[in-house]
């Protein structure tokens, strides 16, 4: 059959039109999400930018809106995040490594796996209830940073476990076989290869988990974070022996979302501004953490190309 250039050209042109349609549709969908976020942020900044000054960051909350600051909330959030990280990271990584490398594939492991994934979907307030009975009363940690940190650790544990497993699964079997073929034991393979090569993925999961935890309000409220804290927890480092103190773990505290909530529920417009300003800070912190996760992932991807 002789080559019909016209027909082919028409066919290609029609295909290309659909290309254009999809590009436009995709862009529109993307814009919906991006614009919503941008508008939210713009709204927050518009309302709260005026309050963002050094005093806002260094003042305690106060009944006078213009003198209220987020110092205790920020410190509280940071300390709670610290406890969360210290608790969730080793537990999550160890659990992920165990499930991927050591556990045999039988019905017990299946059940564990299903439950871990389900945990990620449990409403966070349920974690609060659990924490109340387990940490606050059961173990007697009281309404403290320790309880809050452990609660949030439980919350983000599934995220870390799953991302650890995904990162480990990304390691090609040929690398493992290479290590075993050299006479490595299972522990040596895990220690020298599996964990180091999945660090990128693990870290990403950790940061995403923490970014989520920083904004969690329900469980913290449930275990009784107070909303008007005009003091800081005792410093961990002291001038006298023993130089390291753990008193701060048992201290009452507040966190950023709760502080925002508190200001929002006040009628005065000035407090609304404060809330907006705190919201900006919170969003920026979250965005920074997510950016750090992306940067880390890109950096590790450069070193390790599977």
């Amino acid at each position, binding site marked *: 059959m002789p080559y019909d250039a016209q027909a082919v050209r028409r066919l290609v042109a029609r295909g290309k039109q659909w290309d254009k349609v999809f590009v436009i549709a995709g862009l529109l969908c993307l814009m919906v999400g991006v614009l919503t976020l941008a508008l939210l942020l713009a709204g927050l900044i518009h309302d709260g930018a005026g309050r963002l000054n050094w005093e806002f960051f260094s003042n305690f909350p106060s009944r006078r809106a213009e003198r209220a600051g987020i110092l205790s909330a920020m410190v509280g959030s940071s300390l709670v995040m610290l406890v969360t990280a210290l608790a969730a990271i080793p537990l999550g990584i160890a659990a992920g490594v165990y499930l991927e490398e050591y556990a045999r594939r039988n019905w017990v492991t299946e059940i564990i796996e299903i439950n871990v994934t389900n945990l990620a979907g449990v409403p966070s307030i349920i974690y609060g209830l659990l924490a109340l009975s387990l940490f606050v009363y059961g173990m007697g940690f009281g309404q403290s940073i320790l309880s809050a940190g452990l609660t949030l650790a439980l919350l983000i544990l599934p995220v870390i476990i799953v991302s650890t497993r995904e990162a480990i699964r990304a390691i090609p079997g*040929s690398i493992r076989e*290479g290590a*075993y073929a050299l*006479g490595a034991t299972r522990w040596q393979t895990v220690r020298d290869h599996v964990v180091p090569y999945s660090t990128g993925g693990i870290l990403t999961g950790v940061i995403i988990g923490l970014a989520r935890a920083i904004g969690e309000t329900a469980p913290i409220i449930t275990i009784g974070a107070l909303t008007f804290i005009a003091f800081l927890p005792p410093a961990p480092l002291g001038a006298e022996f023993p130089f390291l103190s753990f008193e701060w773990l048992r201290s009452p505290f507040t966190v950023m979302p709760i502080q925002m909530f508190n200001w929002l529920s006040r009628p005065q417009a000035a407090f609304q501004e404060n809330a907006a300003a705190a919201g900006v800070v919170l969003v920026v912190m979250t965005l920074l953490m997510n950016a750090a996760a992306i940067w880390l992932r890109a950096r590790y991807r450069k*070193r390790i190309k599977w």
Partner: protein
Amino acid sequence: MDMSAGVIAGQAADAGMPPLKAQASELEFFYGEVQALKRVSMPVAANRVTALIGPSGCGKSTFLRCFNRMHDLYDGSRYSGQIVFQPDGVNILDRAVDPIEVRMRIGMVFQKPNPFPKSIFENVAYGLRVRGERSRRVMAEKVEVALRDASLWEEVSDRLDDMAFNLSGGQQQRLCIARALATEPELMLFDEPTSALDPIATANIEELIHRLKDKVTILIVTHNMQQAARVSDYTAFMYLGELVEFGDTNLIFTNPKSKRTEDYITGRYG
């Protein structure tokens, strides 16, 4: 004129083969219910290259991996029969023998180069670390020897701390060979080592295998018959999990005893 593999192997041994490094006897292997190897008996001559050829799915890689107990890493695998390793006369398939110990004496190079995402030095030194070597000086010496044996030293001696991934495919494979050699194994297993490489890299590695014979016994699986003809002293032809014929490479390629071997070698059968 098909003779049973055991008889053929027996004849080979009587016909004046050099001392053996290993001997597989009535080896069978099962993946769950599926039998992948059927009563394979084959000698492995010391300081010689033995090639395993055969169509896809004939069991040559499965057979190779029995030697360093790689199948133990996966559930559902079962061995029967023996592989007796000299000079101690131990059956390395015995459950009582620790696979880690076996892998300490037998090295393996894989089809697709699989260097660790570490530096060149760390790649080659890993086997030494696993064996508890701590002295940096000793490791540096052994790494150099291994890289020289693998014909890679000239090209990387000035950048040992570079990431292994920056090397070309052929260089990576030589790195993997150096990595396996660093621990001074007695037997080296090559699983289609050049099938992912271009002709020049392939030729380099074949030359390297030839020179390594003096130090190590070599067992190589290849789907490239001409490679088997070029590189090996003895050739074994496998088909559907059985050893069909084993013999001197010269004889196998000029006048094989079995029609199945003849058909495969001359391209009458894929």
